[in-house]
């Protein structure tokens, strides 16, 4: 383990010095880059995110003015500000390693794209994570105009349109940012949140509120949980070896 870690760190330092910035192909070619598969071998931090108190009501969305989208629903859709599961589990929480990853470690972004679908005038998924340099494929499944406006500070903002079904647009992000806000201006209720990270150590909670971050090398990490309504919370977790650690988060509903 020590030898591997040593070669990882040494290789990463070599890369930091020799490789041109933002060139993922060069990174892939260097023999000592941390490959995504290797990451599975590390420790796991998992947990559940809940909230206390009563969840605020999600307003219903009146899609009467977009018949093609309204037709896709049996019951009226609601906004997704707070998505609660059984026993106050909180979904759509972006949990990620805020700090603690050794400096100089570089991770290859997967070439497989993260897909963001616009279906029924809603973004699927509502909250998502992506790595720096990994392609985001934005797909329009609706036969109506959506524009995708990315409001970003560390990354270059963009605003592109997809007037008909089947259109695909690809974008990559060059810098870490929590969060890049995505919105559609034609359908003002459509919002998505994108967390861009330089490493694969992030997860989004599902309806049961659970998350799992795998492959962490031994060390002390600051984990942050981000929710669009309830804000952020941090915790410090130390992992050693392959032993899994649990870290729960509890937000107060407001």
């Amino acid at each position, binding site marked *: 383990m020590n030898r591997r870690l040593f070669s990882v760190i040494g290789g990463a330092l070599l890369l930091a010095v020799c490789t041109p910035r933002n060139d993922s192909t060069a990174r892939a070619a260097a023999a000592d880059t941390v490959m995504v598969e290797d990451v599975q071998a590390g420790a796991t931090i998992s947990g559940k995110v809940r909230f206390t108190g009563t969840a605020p009501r999600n307003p219903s969305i009146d899609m009467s003015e977009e018949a093609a989208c309204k037709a896709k629903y049996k019951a009226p859709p609601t906004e997704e500000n707070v998505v609660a599961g059984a026993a106050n589990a909180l979904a759509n929480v972006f949990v990620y390693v805020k700090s603690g990853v050794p400096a100089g470690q570089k991770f290859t972004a997967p070439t497989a794209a993260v897909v963001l679908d616009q279906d029924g005038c809603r973004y699927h998924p509502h909250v998502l994570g992506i790595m720096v340099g990994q392609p985001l494929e934005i797909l329009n499944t609706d036969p109506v105009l959506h524009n995708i406006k990315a409001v970003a500070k560390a990354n270059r903002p963009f605003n592109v349109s997809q*007037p008909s079904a089947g*259109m695909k647009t690809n974008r990559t992000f060059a810098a870490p940012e929590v969060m890049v806000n995505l919105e559609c201006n034609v359908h003002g209720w459509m919002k998505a949140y994108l967390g861009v990270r330089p490493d694969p150590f992030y997860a989004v909670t599902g309806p049961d509120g659970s998350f799992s971050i795998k492959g962490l090398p031994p060390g002390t990490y600051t984990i942050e949980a981000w929710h669009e309504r309830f804000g952020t919370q941090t915790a410090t977790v130390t992992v050693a070896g392959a032993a899994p650690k649990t870290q729960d988060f509890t937000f107060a509903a407001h």
Partner: protein
Amino acid sequence: MTSVAHAKPGAHDAHHAPMSFWRKYIFSTDHKIIGIQFLFVSLFFLLLGGLLAMQIRWQLGFPGKPMPGGGILPEAMTSGGVILPEYYIQLVTMHGTFMVFFAIMPLLMGVYANFLIPLKIGTHDMAFPRLNMWSFWLAFTAGLIMVAGFFVPDGAARAGWTMYAPLSARPDLSGATYGQLVWCVSIVVLGLSSVLGSVNYITTVINHRAPGMTWFRMPLSVWAIFITAILAVLALPVLQGAAILLLFDQTIGTHFFDPIAGGQALLWQHLFWFFGHPEVYILILPAMGMVSDIIANGSRKPIFGYHSMVFAIVGIAFLGWIVWGHHMFMSGMNPTLGSTFMVSTLLISVPSAIKVFNWLGTMWRGNLKFTVPMLNAVAFVSMFTIGGLSGVFMAATPVDMHIHDTYFIVAHLHYVLFGGSLFALFAAIPYWYPKMFGRMMSEAIGKWHFWLTFITYNLVFFPMHILGMNGEMRRLYDPSQYEFLKPQQGLREFITIAAFSLFAVQFLFLFNFLWSLKRGKKAELNPWQDNGLEWSLPSPAPHGNWDRPPNVYRGPYEFSAPEAGNADFLPQHVKLPTDRDPAAATAPAPAPAH
């Protein structure tokens, strides 16, 4: 009969050493070469503007269908050949921009102000020949910058050629990170070109008229260009100033036009239209002037009401400064201004009406020769009348509430700019072609071009009045999103087919223009039997024009004068036995500078 005493042309050529190709044809200070340079470059931009229009029409006629050839355009513009909404609004913006600033304005002023003024007032060249050369190269540079807009990240400007703020000031709202900026820079450079050119035109007309060429013996083409130059020198700087303020808003964080920090959205509109309205008179007056020359010639009669025509030009130009608010009736400005601007706008129709009646008066009891220039000039009168009369609807503010920002306006502006200015250019280009290139354009091709253009053009633009009456808004990527506009899709498709035909027909003109450069019939001195001073020179006119300026004995429209005897024309420079030599010129003509 009459002795034709005129200064020896061409002797000037012997005064200096032969010039290199570059000095003679590329970096030339000869007003005629500069005019021809403007002609080639502007015809290119006219073609480019037309290509952009064809794409607009494709999307409107066949919304959401892949455009033939669309596949070669980048992903930011088309998706699988289908025009995207953000590209569509770039198309409408750049079509207007290229046509107004880089086609029509330079074709009228850059070409004909340059080419005609010294020839028609009887002098060697412009007052400031080197400044004139700069004027061309600045315009050329501005054109390159504007084209570059399509190639910057995120593409070209897209807030309409009118660039309303705050949309144009905020890249986060328009999506055009650099394109709007590029537009502003190009406009500032073009404005400088216009101002420099206009300074030249004004100075030359005031100071360098030949002996006997009094103000009221100048042809109406020169009057019109002269007044237009005054408009340009006062109006373009306003646009430059506005564009610089917009540039600051876009780049260094000022908020002149954004209420987010104390700015005013309406400020842009006032500045833009204070320039913009005189600009549209810049786009029509030279055309009216040249049409007057051509109709008088084609009718073999003096222009009817020459003095009224001059006063009408001055009246239009003067009133043109106080009507700009009619573009802003719905803008949210004080409604009282709606009343005042309505009055001035209705009044400005009167001098235009005077001109139309005078053209009719010129043709009345004439001996009409329908050459290609005459056909196009008469069509100008016909189409400009439609365009001008449609303006009355929008001048009436309650009616404007319904038709503002609809296709009724699009119909109006195309009737005056295409039906008006472009038909006038289709008359002027073959008319002065022999003096430019020493050859004639083909009359036969010209006649085909005229009739096919006239028919297809009306099929394109007349139905737009109907679309507008029904409330069809401008700049819509897909009008059929609205229930009330769905029934008109058939008419939109019809217009598109007609527009494709109209565009195709223009290749007849292009072919005629290019082919005749080498294969046209060699031109004689005065193929149209016209009275202007330029027709006393060889075809093409030589460098320096005359050795000594000619004497002028009469006005420019003495067709069928009794003194002419058997001929039905009497040139300005021809001395009859009863004529006395004029006094020396107001200022001595300058020695040709190099």
